[in-house]
């Protein structure tokens, strides 16, 4: 049909809009749902101190790292200090190959110390956290996250079992709650293991943060008192609340999503309105003829709004088929899954139908008000 050619750009625009909206919604819905899932720990009372040991040799670095930890622990406002390589919202674990019963899988390794669970209030569901006395054993003591235990051990309890981590034997001593990088992140099946490298980051637990400056001064003093000028505090503000990272991340994500969404909405609204108006202007003679044949203004309005709905269906149908196929083949994991994908398809389609109706309404109303004899002669 000739009209199909005429509507090609509109259909293309609808298709692209559907895909963009689906991605925008699909990728964010999963994140949004993650906000309502428990993080598995508390970051509100945790402070981050990050040091730069510059070119200090590894052995020396290790000694100073431990010394600074002890100094920090002696500050009375600080309840607990954890030397760590894993900081929520900032630095996450590394992927490692683990093996149990000849079955291999990948999981995130979280390099932390014995106080990590205490600083972040990370709950244990079974067993215990590793302690310094475990470090003397031939096997690495590890704590699995609940989701890793369920994934790799099914009904069996992993406590007391030996697994291989990068071909090193490791003894499972406990199972923690699930552990996610940030409020928007998916679950990260993984395991905690003791520090193997000198720490440069310290998580400090302190509820007494009323006098921030005083605490900062004490920390600077503690770091300075270890007897070397080589160690620098990396932040402009010497201490950063983990909470600050969390808020910054949330605002950035929300901001980006809103900007992309608003830009998309304005562009699509203008684009579709323009193309629809243009297409209707090319059909003035037809509108005039229909009115002469007995179509009432309501009939004309209904016809063009109906056509807009048919066009929307034709435009988004290929998109629906494509994304459904991608969801079935799990190509969009882990960004979205079948459940959120289906919701996103429904919401995107509904949104485009509403958008198209609002874009089509005014041009259709104008068409319905055309003088038939004038319109008839506008070929």
């Amino acid at each position: 049909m000739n009209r199909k050619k005429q509507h090609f750009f509109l259909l293309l625009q609808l298709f692209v809009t559907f895909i963009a909206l689906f991605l925008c919604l699909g990728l964010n819905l999963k994140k949004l749902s993650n906000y309502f899932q428990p993080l598995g720990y508390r970051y509100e009372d945790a402070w981050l101190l990050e040091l730069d040991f510059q070119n200090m040799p590894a052995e020396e670095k290790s000694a100073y790292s431990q010394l600074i930890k002890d100094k920090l622990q002696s500050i009375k406002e600080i309840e607990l200090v954890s030397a760590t390589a894993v900081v929520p919202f900032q630095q996450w674990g590394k992927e490692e190959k683990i093996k149990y019963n000849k079955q291999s899988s990948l999981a995130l390794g979280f390099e932390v110390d014995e106080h990590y669970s205490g600083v972040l209030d990370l709950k244990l569901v079974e067993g215990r956290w590793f302690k310094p006395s475990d470090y003397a054993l031939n096997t690495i003591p590890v704590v699995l996250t609940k989701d890793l235990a369920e994934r790799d051990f099914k009904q069996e309890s992993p406590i007391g079992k030996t697994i291989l981590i990068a071909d090193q034997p490791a003894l499972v001593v406990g199972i923690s709650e699930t552990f996610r990088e940030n409020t928007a992140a998916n679950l990260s099946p993984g395991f905690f293991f003791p520090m193997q490298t000198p720490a440069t980051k310290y998580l400090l637990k302190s509820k007494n943060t009323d006098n921030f400056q005083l605490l900062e001064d004490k920390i600077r003093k503690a770091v300075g008192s270890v007897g070397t000028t080589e160690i620098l505090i990396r932040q402009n503000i010497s201490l950063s609340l983990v909470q600050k990272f969390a808020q910054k991340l949330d605002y950035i994500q929300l901001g980006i999503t809103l900007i992309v969404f608003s830009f998309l909405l304005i562009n699509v609204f203008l684009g579709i309105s323009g193309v629809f108006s243009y297409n209707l202007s090319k059909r003035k003679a037809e509108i005039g003829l229909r009115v002469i044949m007995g179509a009432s203004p309501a009939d004309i309005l209904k016809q063009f709004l109906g056509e807009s709905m048919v066009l929307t269906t034709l435009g988004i149908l290929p998109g629906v088929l494509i994304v459904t196929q991608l969801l079935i083949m799990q190509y969009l994991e882990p960004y979205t899954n079948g459940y959120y994908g289906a919701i996103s398809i429904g919401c995107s389609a509904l949104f485009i139908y509403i958008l198209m109706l609002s874009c089509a309404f005014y041009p259709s109303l104008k068409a319905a008000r055309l003088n038939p004899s004038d319109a008839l002669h506008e070929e």
Partner: protein
Amino acid sequence: MIHLSNIEKVYRTKTIETIALNNINLNINKGEFVAIMGPSGCGKSTLLNIMGLLDAPTRGSIVMDDQQVTALSRKKLALFRNLKLGFIFQSYHLINDLSVIDNVELPLLYRKGISGTERRKRALEALEKVGLSARTKHYPNQLSGGQRQRVAIARAIIGNPEIILADEPTGNLDSAMGEEVMNLMLHLNKTDGTTIVMVTHDELMAKKTQRVIHFFDGQQVS
């Protein structure tokens, strides 16, 4: 059937006022075939638009089929046109994206209570009457001028209107085709008793009608 009293049509712009029709009084009886003639710009088509309820007169009243139609709403005018009037145009005005049969069905789309099957049946009957039942699936651009005008006639008669308004229906056709179309309208007038008002420049065609009305400068002169 059609009673026009004191009809006046004035087109106004900011600077110019043009009187297209001036004090027209006209009665057309039921079953009559009337031709309206006159030079270009004399108001023939304006009159036909007013009779077809496509344009409102500046002054005067129109009574059609014993009904005062001057002050009807757009919705009621549309309904009246759909039930009582059929239109034939010089340049056919068929919708190129629709097949012949879909074009013919068009007036019945806006009539309540007629099923798709009934529409199709009546469209086929109308096309049969104009001798185009073999062209139902064709598109307008696949037809000759004469055939297109016959499709337009089928479209005009599908709703069994009491009045057909034809604006230079043979104007774009050669003499043979024009003759054919004219004969078709004469046949409709004779057999169905349809009232036909035809605007034409062609005196030969006009002579075949029962009455010729002449217009000049927006006024009826005979």
